[in-house]
């Protein structure tokens, strides 16, 4: 049994299965929803299989077609890719369950193939071992995401989608230029080979600048975040959830890979700049979130702030800091998906998401409000939650390195988050009576949000396990975690 398990290339399956699912949903639109759900379960199984494989046998490398790098396409799975794949699987399953209740038949026909396609691109991105393959998957991901944003229809969504498309293309284009420069300099695209051959030169610096700029634009780091709030807020709820939870993380993942493996020597000064921008994002995003009058805009600005935290690890650069950033990424993915879903439920139930008029809706949806609250605990970084573990690790790294000013940013960001989360929560406790014409929300939608939020809380209690997985293949370099 164990032999068969070991023989299956789970990583490749995790890419092919959603692709097949996309085809099936496309060809059989009337059964798109159940087909999609079955595929989602299958992908979760693949991620679990890969997890077992990596935990048992260490980092995995697959040579597609048997050619191997530098000629063929290689897939590579270490602890970092594995965790990205796993969190995508968990959030993806949640989104699939939620979507099966959310979309009417007409919209579902378009949603499912696109979502499955996007999932496949995401998994491929997390497993790619060369920088050109990363470009291809990034582009596929971007196109699928743009189509999903446009799904809501109407002028707002189309404008948002168009702006998103332009930003997305611009970002990938800059990245592609960098890839060309690197290929010209070193004659290879494989990350491991590049790392061996890397030596500083003007071309490398230019490549690094272009690739980083493109990826920062796609990750919406302040001040390149302008496109994110309208795109994320105008999309249908499950799409907002998958954009904020997963898609922005993909470009961050590429940046992390490049930073850790390809450009390790040359990147010293840029780290402080990224940290500074991250800090600005934390504060600006938090303040803007606090100012919003619409719930979904508030959550979208919260994403801008939370993405800022990820960049605080760059100036710190220690093992603990990377672990903290990655842990934040995981818990934010779960919490933010839960938040957008809860907001979707409120919107669906009351027909609006004006925060000031939320009281009459919130009392009737206790499960969704609980989901929002629990996810909020993780976003604020209060214990027990994955967000707290992440914040603790980042604080510890900042204290250890003597760069105490990042501590202030982390604390201020937490206080701002508390302010905007409780701004919403407070509306649940009022004496107002229900006056709206209510539309019932399916139980699956309420529970999908709540379960994801609970997993974000649970991440705060099982931290040693994901942190150990992260170390497989030593993605953060030299020494194992102390």
């Amino acid at each position: 049994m164990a032999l068969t398990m070991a023989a299956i290339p789970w990583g490749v399956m995790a890419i092919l299965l959603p692709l097949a699912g996309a085809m099936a949903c496309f060809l059989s639109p009337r059964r798109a929803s159940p087909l999609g759900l079955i595929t989602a379960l299958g992908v979760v199984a693949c991620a679990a299989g890969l997890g077992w494989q990596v935990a048992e046998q260490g980092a995995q490398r697959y040579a597609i077609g048997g050619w191997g790098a530098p000629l063929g396409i290689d897939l590579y799975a270490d602890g970092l890719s594995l965790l990205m794949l796993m969190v995508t699987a968990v959030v993806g399953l949640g989104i699939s369950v939620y979507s099966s209740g959310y979309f009417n038949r007409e919209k579902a026909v378009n949603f499912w193939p696109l979502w499955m396609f996007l999932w496949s691109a995401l998994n491929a991105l997390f497993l790619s071992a060369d920088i050109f393959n990363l470009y291809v998957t990034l582009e596929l991901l971007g196109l699928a995401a743009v189509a999903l944003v446009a799904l809501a229809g109407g002028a707002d969504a189309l404008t948002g989608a168009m702006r998103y498309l332009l930003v997305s293309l611009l970002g990938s284009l800059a990245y592609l230029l960098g890839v060309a420069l690197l290929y010209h300099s070193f004659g290879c695209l494989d990350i491991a080979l590049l790392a061996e051959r890397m030596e500083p030169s003007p071309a490398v610096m230019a490549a690094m600048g272009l690739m980083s700029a493109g990826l920062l634009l796609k990750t919406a780091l302040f001040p390149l975040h302008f496109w994110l709030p309208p795109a994320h807020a105008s999309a249908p709820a499950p799409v907002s959830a998958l954009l904020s939870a997963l898609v922005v993380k993909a470009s961050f993942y590429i940046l992390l890979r490049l930073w850790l493996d390809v450009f390790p020597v040359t990147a010293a000064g840029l780290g402080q700049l990224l940290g500074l921008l991250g800090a600005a994002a934390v504060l600006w995003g938090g303040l803007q979130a606090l100012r919003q009058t619409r719930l979904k805009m508030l959550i979208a600005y919260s994403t801008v702030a939370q993405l800022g935290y990820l960049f605080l690890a760059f100036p710190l650069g220690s093992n603990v800091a990377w672990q903290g950033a990655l842990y934040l990424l995981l818990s934010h993915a779960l919490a933010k998906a839960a938040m957008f879903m809860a907001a979707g439920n409120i919107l669906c139930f009351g027909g609006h998401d004006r925060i000031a008029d939320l009281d009459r809706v919130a009392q009737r949806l206790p499960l969704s409000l609980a989901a929002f609250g629990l996810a909020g605990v993780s976003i604020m970084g209060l214990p027990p939650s994955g967000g707290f573990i992440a914040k603790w690790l980042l604080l510890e790294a900042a204290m250890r390195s003597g760069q105490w000013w990042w501590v202030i940013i982390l604390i201020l960001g937490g206080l701002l988050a508390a302010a905007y989360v409780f701004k919403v929560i407070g509306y649940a406790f009022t004496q107002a009576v229900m006056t709206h014409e209510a539309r019932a929300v399916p139980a699956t939608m309420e529970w999908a949000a709540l379960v994801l939020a609970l997993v974000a809380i649970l991440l705060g209690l099982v931290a040693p396990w994901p942190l150990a997985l992260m170390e497989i293949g030593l993605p953060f370099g030299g020494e194992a975690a102390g």
Partner: protein
Amino acid sequence: MNWDGWLPLLIVLSSLSVGLVIFFLPEERVATRTTLNLTGAVLKLVLVGVIIWGVVHRHHYETRLPLLPGLDLVLRADAESVLFVTLSSGLWLVTTVYAIGYLEGSPHRSRFFGFFSLCVAATVGVALAGNLITFLLFYELLTLATYPLIVHRGTDAAHQAGRAYLTYTIAGGALLLVGTVWLYGIAGSLEFSYRGFVAELADGHRAALIAIFALLIAGLAVKAALVPFHSWLPQAMVAPAPVSALLHAVAVVKAGAFGIVRVVYDVYGIEFAAGLGVTLPLATVAAVTIIYGSMRALFQDDLKRRLAFSTVSQVSYIVLGIALTGPIATIGGLVHLVHQGVMKITLFFCAGNLAETLGIHKVSEMNGVGRRMPWTMAAFTIGAFGMIGAPPLAGFISKWYLGLGALDAGQGWVIFILAGSSLLNAGYFLPILYAAWFKAPPDTWPAERSFGRRETAWALLAPPVVTALLTLALGLLASAPFSPLQWARSITTLEYAP
């Protein structure tokens, strides 16, 4: 099977699980909810009894779960945690009975009792925490669980109080977090141990240790309502009476005071802290708070507000006892942790009874109320005299030890603080008692509800009478074995080097 490793966790789970079940209970299942509440409270008390027995017989109760690499979630029964956990579980049972009576027929009871149970689970976690990060975890959980109770009524005043509470406590929690991380960076450990664990770091980290002390204490002072972090507490009295009892006696304020006990004794060690020069400023802040709280209480006409300022003042007795460097003062501070809880909960129960039964919210409406509600006012009288420090009540024992301890530690000025505060206590409690017993009652009460021949409902009357009797017993039986005083004595022998 060995239960010693799981008992502390079970104590936390006994109310946590009850809370989670209650959330999903439909509003109208009153009997089920009441049964669950009381079962949880009694079960917890039984488990605490087992732990007391075990600790006396030298059992070692510790639950240790990995939280982060190198840091564990530790729940442990040591001498201090037993003192606090007994207080909060005992008073919780009484408060639960009271809350069931108080909230009869009001909306959103499942939500209320759910958070009520979470709140106590967090308090018990604070009590049993075996290291600073576990303490922090439950301390923040307490903040989150209490907020919904404060805003429970949903009025504008309640929202305002909730916002003030969050602003103070979340900021306080952030300070505590920074202090904890900093300490962990220097010391590499956060385990509480008798006489502290940071003394060997003194060389080279002196300034950092003083700064960390300030951060930790500031974070805790918010919940302990030390001046200038106290103003959320009087505002929070808009919450229903059982919540006030929880805030003032069982959970929140006590968690802050208990945290200061932990930091001074089990993180720094009292003798090392004194050597560092940080205890005298803390004692000064406590002294200022004692006088300031009493002065403000003097001018409040709203009964619950007057009691709230009285809490601000009384809780600082605990901090004062802790910060005076001497074993006798320590005994006084620790024993007041219990005594203040029992006395103040009595007073808040009585205030709740007056409000629920007669619609009385103000001191000026209390003329002659002793004749209408003799049992309630008798309990109130015992609580008030206890607060003033009249023998043979519980408050007298606290003040006696604090005074002796101050002299013993060579801090004579504290006597004046204690005497001044007692005078002020008398100044704001005696007029209430005089009006209630000796003035003529008005023709009609503001909003009277009839309970037949009884003065009020059983569930409302029994709790204050029980806690008033307890106030009497704690004073009269102070030297009996297992009294809080004896327990505080044995803690003190552990905290001072022989």
